[in-house]
């Protein structure tokens, strides 16, 4: 079956509505959150209307069906990223997934491979989203470990020239983004994973911007932990994923404690269940997990390689069109090599917030601001940018509308 954006859009009911007095919705903000197909909306509704009960508890039929649906979703997510189901942990968001690892490491006692203290080092990069920066800087503060980071080059790539000085024998963890949510840059993981493992450090990958857009096989990536959110991958909000290698999940202490993550409890002590239950205290976001399972099925039915190919072609087209606009500066790689379909840019004289407002009046949804990556904006010498991010339901016509919108904005704001 050939890749048809027209057919795909029919599966997403939001494209039936119009924006600002009858304009067609041109949704270019999937980097913030993606739209949802009927398959996901129906899966969530179906869970609530037919199978709702607390999972892993209860002796009744509904509890059994709910547990089957929830664990079935875990298996679908695992299959989607080439993992084993017991390595897949449901959280409420990717932010929680990353915090889970950071806080759990902070809970590790001396002797545990994750224990951190003075003399240990944590490595991040300047291009991290706040969700993969703040948890680590705060962990460094709490434990006395030192935070180091990779810089970003002027052509928006990770500067790995000093990799041996950044990742040292003292490094315990390297937390890095797979694809920048601002620049679109896809980072070269092989060199980072190799050096990290050489010094005995674990690699935590923020895959929020990559898992929804390209085929991912955790085994092939070589990383140790991987986080992504459901809602950026056409799934519901309220569900995120943390994947980790089984032996590491066994050694990692829990983060949140409480019901369903224990094997036994006395008034003064408790012992922990095996992963993934050890990291899923409390009744989880069940309908959302089931919705994410449906999202993985939908994406698989379209084909992740087909989606990646579509986005590469679309990014080629968009970059070509955008660089033709006078006074437009791409903030990120201007070539399509090792790059996702997120394109940030600035226009001389028009502030991104004003441009975003104008585009909205044309039915075009973009993101403006620092995109929760303030240190990156500072390193690129921009206060804020406009970001267009594409997905499977976007096509060249959307790019054309964006380009026309920018040109109209230049006329509109240039008239004074």
């Amino acid at each position, binding site marked *: 079956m050939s890749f048809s954006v027209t057919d795909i859009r029919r599966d997403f009911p939001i494209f039936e509505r119009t924006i*600002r*007095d009858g304009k067609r919705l041109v949704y270019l903000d999937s980097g913030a959150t993606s739209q949802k197909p009927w398959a996901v909306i129906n899966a969530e509704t179906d869970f609530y209307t037919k199978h709702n009960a607390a999972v892993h508890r209860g002796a009744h039929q509904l509890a059994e069906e709910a547990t089957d649906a929830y664990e079935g979703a875990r298996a679908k997510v695992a299959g989607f990223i080439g993992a084993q189901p017991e390595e897949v942990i449901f959280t409420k968001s990717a932010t929680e997934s990353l915090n889970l690892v950071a806080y759990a490491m902070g809970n590790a006692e001396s002797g545990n491979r994750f224990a951190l203290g003075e003399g240990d080092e944590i490595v991040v990069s300047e291009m991290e989203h706040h969700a993969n920066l703040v948890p680590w800087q705060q962990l460094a503060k709490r434990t006395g470990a030192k935070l180091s980071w990779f810089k970003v080059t002027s052509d928006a790539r990770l500067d790995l020239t000093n990799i041996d000085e950044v990742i040292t024998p003292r490094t315990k963890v390297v937390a890095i983004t797979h694809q920048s949510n601002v620049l679109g840059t896809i980072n070269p993981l092989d060199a980072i994973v190799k050096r990290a493992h050489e010094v005995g450090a674990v690699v935590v990958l923020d895959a929020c911007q990559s898992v929804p857009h390209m085929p991912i096989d955790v085994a092939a990536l070589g990383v140790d932990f991987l986080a992504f959110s459901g809602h950026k991958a056409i799934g519901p909000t309220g569900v995120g994923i943390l994947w980790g290698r089984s032996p590491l999940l066994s050694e990692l202490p829990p983060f949140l404690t409480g019901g369903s993550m224990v094997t036994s409890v006395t008034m003064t002590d408790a012992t922990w269940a095996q992963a993934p239950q050890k990291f899923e205290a409390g009744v989880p976001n069940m309908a959302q997990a089931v919705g994410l399972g449906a999202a993985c099925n939908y994406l698989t039915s379209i084909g992740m390689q087909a989606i990646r190919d579509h986005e590469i072609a679309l990014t080629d087209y968009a970059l070509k069109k955008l660089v033709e606009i006078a006074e437009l500066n791409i903030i990120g790689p201007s070539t399509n090599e090792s790059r996702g379909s997120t394109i940030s840019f600035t226009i001389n004289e028009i*502030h*991104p*917030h*004003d441009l975003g*407002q*104008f585009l909205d*009046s044309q039915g075009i949804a973009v993101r*403006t*601001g*620092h995109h929760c990556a*303030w240190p990156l*904006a500072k390193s690129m010498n921009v*206060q*804020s940018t406009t970001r267009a991010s594409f997905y499977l339901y976007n096509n060249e016509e959307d790019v054309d509308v964006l380009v026309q919108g920018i040109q109209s904005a230049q006329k*509109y*704001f240039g008239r*004074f």
Partner: protein
Amino acid sequence: MELDSLYQEVILDHYKHPQHKGLNPVFSAQVHHVNTSCGDEVTLNVTIKDRKITGISWDGQGCSISQASVSMLTDLLIDKTLEEAEVITHSFSELMASKGTSTGDADLLEDAVAFAGVSKFPSRVKCALLGWMAFKDAAVQSQGESK
């Protein structure tokens, strides 16, 4: 077009030709406010003598709405007493909360009634208020020091 009610000519004029921009090193209170959701920022240096605002200078970066609003604020509040400034600030805040139902008090707000259209765009109200919140803060600070 709805957009024209937001981007009034006088607003874009203040954005392109900001008044009293450039920080005066002499001041009785300095405040720096940031709109954390978008990164827009403004620094105000305010000089107050005997409860009269004798000078406001500023620097900042951000969208046309936030920057034009600070520029107009300086035009409106310099040479006013703190009491007069409070009445004007209150009137501006009320206009911003009006959700497009008010045209603003032109006697008090003068050109700043042009921001009436902003109140129809909830996400932009905080842009328009950035400088005004900073001024409130500066006024409180300088009063604290004079006691």
